[in-house]
C-alpha cells in the first residue's frame, strides 16, 4: 500500500511517505514581505494595545476589563519576541570537512591526528533491540577522511540484556552504580571514561543517517563552534485516516466518492493526523534555525554533536566560579562567627579546598532541562565566545510519543525545567549573554508563561456571554477598526514568514496545553521537584480523559455560555448587541477548536489500516 501511495504523491502526505519536511529556503522577496508585514503588524498591534488602555476600558467593569487588557498586552509582548525570533534565517554555513584535528582547533594541541568521535546512546529502560537498530546505523556513519568513530551504550538501567546487545554489536558498554542527575549524570559518567574530540548525543531510539558527520563536521572548522544541533525528526507520526476512507466506512462508495472529490479540491485531508502535534518542523526549521544569526540556538539533546573541549572548559569555568563564590560566602560567615576582620590565607585555602571537593563537577548541568541550561552557560562564556548552530537538514530520525500520557510527561518536564531556570537562574540577568541572545532566550522562557494570559482568553467570552458584562466599552465598529488590521496583518505576516508549516496547529496546542504549563509553573514557584505524578490507572487506561479534565470543563462552560448568550440576545436583554454576540461567538469557537485538539488526543487510537503500519514499521526494519 505504501508503494502505491508513493506514486500518487499529490494526494499523499509526507507522514504517509515517512519523509521529513522540505527545508525552508525563503528567497529575498518572501523575507522582505515577511519583515514588512511583521513590522506593520506590530505597529498596528501597538496602536491597538494603546487604544485598549486609553479608550476602551469599561469603567463599570474594571474588574473584568483590566485583567483582559493586561492579558492582551502580555500576549502582544510575546508576539514581539516571537517576531524577533523569526526575523531572519541567516546564519553560519559549514566549512569544508576537516581532515584532521588541527582543522578544528586554534593553535597547537599537540601532534596532529585523525579526529575521534564518540557516539553516545543514553538509555534507561528502552527495548535493547530498539537500541540495537541505532547502534547498527551508527556503525554506518560515513566520512571522506580518516576518522575514528567509537560507539558507546550508556545504560542507566544496568541491564544484562542491553550489555549483551552492545557486546554483540561490538560497541562499548558503560554503566554506573547510581542514577544521579538523570541523563546529564549519565553523560558525565561516560565523558569521564571516553576521549573523543567530538561527542554525538543519541537517545535510545535515535537512528543516525550515514551523512550525519559529513553534514555537521564542517561547522567545526570554526574553532569556537561548541555544538551543532540537527532536527529531531519523528518518522513514525501517525498519518491519519484519509477522509475518503473514513467516509467510505461510514457511507459506502458514495462517501468515498465525496471524500475523493473534497481532496481533489483541497488536497489531502487526513483525520487524526499527528494527533499529538509531535511534528517539530515549526520548532526546528523556523524557531531554532532563525536563532542562528544571534548565536542563540540551544541544544536539544539527541541528534546533536558537541566539541568535548567546549563542554569541559565551560564546566571547569562554572565549577571554579562556584567554588570562588562559595568560598567568599564562607569567608563572610567565618568573619561573623569569629569576629575576626581578616581570615588567614591558610584558613581560606583550606575552606576553598573543602568546597572544591564538595561541589560537583558537571559537564552537563545537572538539571531536568540540562540541554538548554548547558547552552545558556556556553553562550554566556565571554572569554571563549562559544558558538552554536542549528543545522537544518534532517540527518537522523527518532520515534514520537504515541499517547497523551507520554506526551504530557515530556511537555511537563520541558515546561518545568525551563521555568525552573527562569526562576532560579534567570538568563536575562546573566552576564555574558549578548542582547540578541537575551531576546532569543526571553522568547523561549516567556512562551512558558503564556498560560497565565491564555486562561484569561478562555474565560473572557464565557463571562460576557453569561452576564452581558463587556470587558470593553463597546463592541462596535470602533473596536473592530482597531483590532482587525492588527489581526489581519499578523496573519498575513505569519503566512509569509512561516510558509510551509501549519501555524494553526501550533497555536491550538499552545492554548490547549495550559494546564500542563500552569502545573509546572506552580511546582516551580513552590520549589517542588519537577516530576510528573503518574498513577497506575493512567497507564492502564489507554484513554486519558483525566489528563484533559480542565479542557473538558472549559469546553462545557463555553458551550453553555454560548447557549445562554444567544438566548439572552434573542430576548433583547441589555448588553447583548449583535456585534458583541458575533465577536464572542467567534472567539468561543476559536477557543473550542483549540481545546478540542487535546481532547481528541486523549481519546485517540491509531487507525489499524493507516496509522499502525507507519507507527510499527520499525519492527520490520532490517539492518
Amino acid at each position, binding site marked *: 500500500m505504501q508503494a502505491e501511495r508513493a506514486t500518487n*504523491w*499529490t494526494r499523499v*502526505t*509526507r507522514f504517509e511517505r515517512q519523509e521529513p519536511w*522540505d527545508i525552508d529556503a525563503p528567497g529575498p522577496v518572501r523575507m522582505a514581505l515577511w519583515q514588512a508585514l511583521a513590522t506593520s503588524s506590530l505597529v498596528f498591534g501597538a496602536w491597538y494595545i494603546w487604544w485598549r488602555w486609553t479608550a476602551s476600558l469599561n469603567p463599570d467593569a474594571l474588574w473584568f476589563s483590566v485583567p483582559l487588557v493586561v492579558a492582551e498586552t502580555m500576549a502582544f509582548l510575546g508576539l514581539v519576541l516571537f517576531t524577533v525570533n523569526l526575523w531572519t534565517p541567516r546564519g553560519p554555513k559549514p566549512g569544508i570537512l576537516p581532515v584532521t584535528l588541527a582543522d578544528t582547533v586554534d593553535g597547537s594541541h599537540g601532534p596532529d591526528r585523525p579526529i575521534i568521535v564518540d557516539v553516545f546512546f543514553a538509555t534507561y529502560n528502552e527495548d535493547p533491540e530498539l537500541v540495537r537498530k541505532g547502534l547498527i546505523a551508527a556503525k554506518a556513519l560515513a566520512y571522506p577522511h580518516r576518522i575514528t568513530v567509537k560507539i558507546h551504550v550508556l545504560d542507566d538501567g544496568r541491564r544484562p540484556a542491553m550489555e549483551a546487545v552492545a557486546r554483540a554489536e561490538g560497541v562499548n558498554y558503560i554503566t554506573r552504580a547510581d542514577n544521579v542527575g538523570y541523563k546529564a549524570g549519565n553523560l558525565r559518567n561516560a565523558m569521564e571514561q571516553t576521549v573523543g574530540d567530538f561527542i554525538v548525543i543519541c537517545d535510545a531510539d535515535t537512528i543516525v543517517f550515514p551523512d550525519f558527520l559529513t553534514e555537521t563536521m564542517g561547522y567545526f572548522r570554526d574553532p569556537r563552534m561548541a555544538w551543532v544541533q540537527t532536527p529531531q525528526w519523528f518518522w513514525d507520526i501517525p498519518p491519519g485516516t484519509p477522509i475518503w476512507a473514513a467516509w467510505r466506512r461510514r457511507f459506502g462508495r458514495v462517501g468515498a466518492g465525496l471524500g475523493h472529490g473534497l481532496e481533489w479540491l*483541497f*488536497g*489531502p485531508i487526513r483525520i487524526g493526523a499527528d494527533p499529538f502535534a509531535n511534528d517539530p518542523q515549526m520548532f526546528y526549521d523556523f524557531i531554532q534555525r532563525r536563532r542562528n544569526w544571534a548565536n542563540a540556538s540551544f541544544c536539544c539533546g539527541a541528534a546533536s554533536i558537541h566539541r568535548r573541549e567546549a563542554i569541559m572548559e565551560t564546566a571547569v569555568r562554572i565549577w571554579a566560579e562556584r567554588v570562588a563564590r562559595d568560598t567568599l560566602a564562607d569567608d563572610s560567615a567565618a568573619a561573623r562567627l569569629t569576629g575576626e576582620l581578616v581570615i588567614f590565607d591558610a584558613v581560606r585555602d583550606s575552606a576553598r579546598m573543602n568546597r572544591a571537593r564538595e561541589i560537583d563537577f558537571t559537564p552537563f548541568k545537572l538539571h531536568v532541562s540540562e540541554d538548554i541550561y548547558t547552552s545558556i552557560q556556553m553562550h554566556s562564556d565571554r572569554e571563549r565566545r562559544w558558538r552554536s548552530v542549528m543545522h537544518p537538514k534532517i540527518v537522523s530520525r527518532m520515534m514520537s510519543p504515541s499517547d497523551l500520557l507520554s506526551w504530557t510527561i515530556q511537555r511537563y518536564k520541558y515546561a518545568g525545567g525551563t521555568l525552573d531556570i527562569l526562576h532560579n537562574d534567570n538568563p536575562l540577568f546573566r552576564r555574558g549573554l549578548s542582547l540578541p541572545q537575551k531576546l532569543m532566550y526571553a522568547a523561549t522562557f516567556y512562551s512558558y508563561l503564556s498560560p497565565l494570559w491564555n486562561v484569561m482568553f478562555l474565560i473572557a467570552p464565557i463571562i460576557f456571554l453569561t452576564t452581558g458584562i463587556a470587558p470593553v466599552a463597546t463592541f*462596535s*465598529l470602533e473596536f*473592530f477598526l482597531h483590532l*482587525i488590521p492588527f*489581526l*489581519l496583518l499578523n*496573519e*498575513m505576516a*505569519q*503566512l509569509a514568514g512561516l*510558509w*510551509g*508549516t*501549519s*501555524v*494553526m*496547529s501550533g497555536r491550538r496546542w499552545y492554548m490547549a496545553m495550559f494546564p500542563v504549563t500552569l502545573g509546572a509553573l506552580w511546582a516551580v514557584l513552590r520549589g517542588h521537584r519537577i516530576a510528573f505524578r503518574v498513577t497506575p490507572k493512567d497507564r492502564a487506561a489507554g484513554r486519558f480523559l483525566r489528563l484533559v479534565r480542565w479542557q473538558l470543563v472549559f469546553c462545557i462552560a463555553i458551550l453553555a455560555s454560548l447557549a445562554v448568550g444567544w438566548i439572552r440576545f434573542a430576548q433583547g436583554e*441589555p*448588553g447583548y448587541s*449583535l*456585534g458583541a454576540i*458575533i*465577536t464572542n461567538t*467567534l472567539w468561543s469557537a476559536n477557543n473550542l477548536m483549540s481545546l478540542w485538539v487535546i481532547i481528541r488526543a486523549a481519546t485517540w487510537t491509531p487507525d489499524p489500516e493507516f496509522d499502525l503500519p507507519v507507527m510499527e514499521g520499525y519492527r520490520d526494519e532490517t539492518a
Partner: protein
Amino acid sequence: MKRRSGLQAAREQIVWIAALIGSTAIVVQLERLDLQQVGTALTENPFIGSGPEVLTLLDQVRGTDDGSDLALAQRATALTMGLMLDARPDARPDALRAEAARTLLLLETRIAERDDLLLRSAAALLAAALTVGDDRPSP
C-alpha cells in the same frame, strides 16, 4: 511541490483569515444597517398619509405605543414636531410641554440603562425643542 505542500499546510490559516474578514464585513454591514435604521426612524413618519395634523400624529403615536424603544423615540419625535410648530394646535400647550418633559425623563432613564443611539438622538431633539419653547414669549 513546495508550493503545493505550503498551501496544504496553510489551509486552516486561510480559512481563519477568511472568517476574520467575513465577520468584519458582517459587523460593518450591521453597523451600516443600524445607522440607516436610526436615520429612517428619525426622518420617516410611519404614519405618513394617515393625517397631516401633528395632533393626529401624536394621537396615533400614543395609541400604538408598545413600550419599545422605537415607539418611545417616535413619540418623542412627534412631541418635538408638536413643540416646534409655531401654531399650537393643542388647546392646552402646557399639557404638551408637560408630556414632552415626562417623555424626556423617560428617555433619559432608558438611556441610562442602555446607551442607544436612537434614543439619544430623540432625546437630544426633544430637549432642544423644550429649550426653544422656554425661550419663546408666552402667548
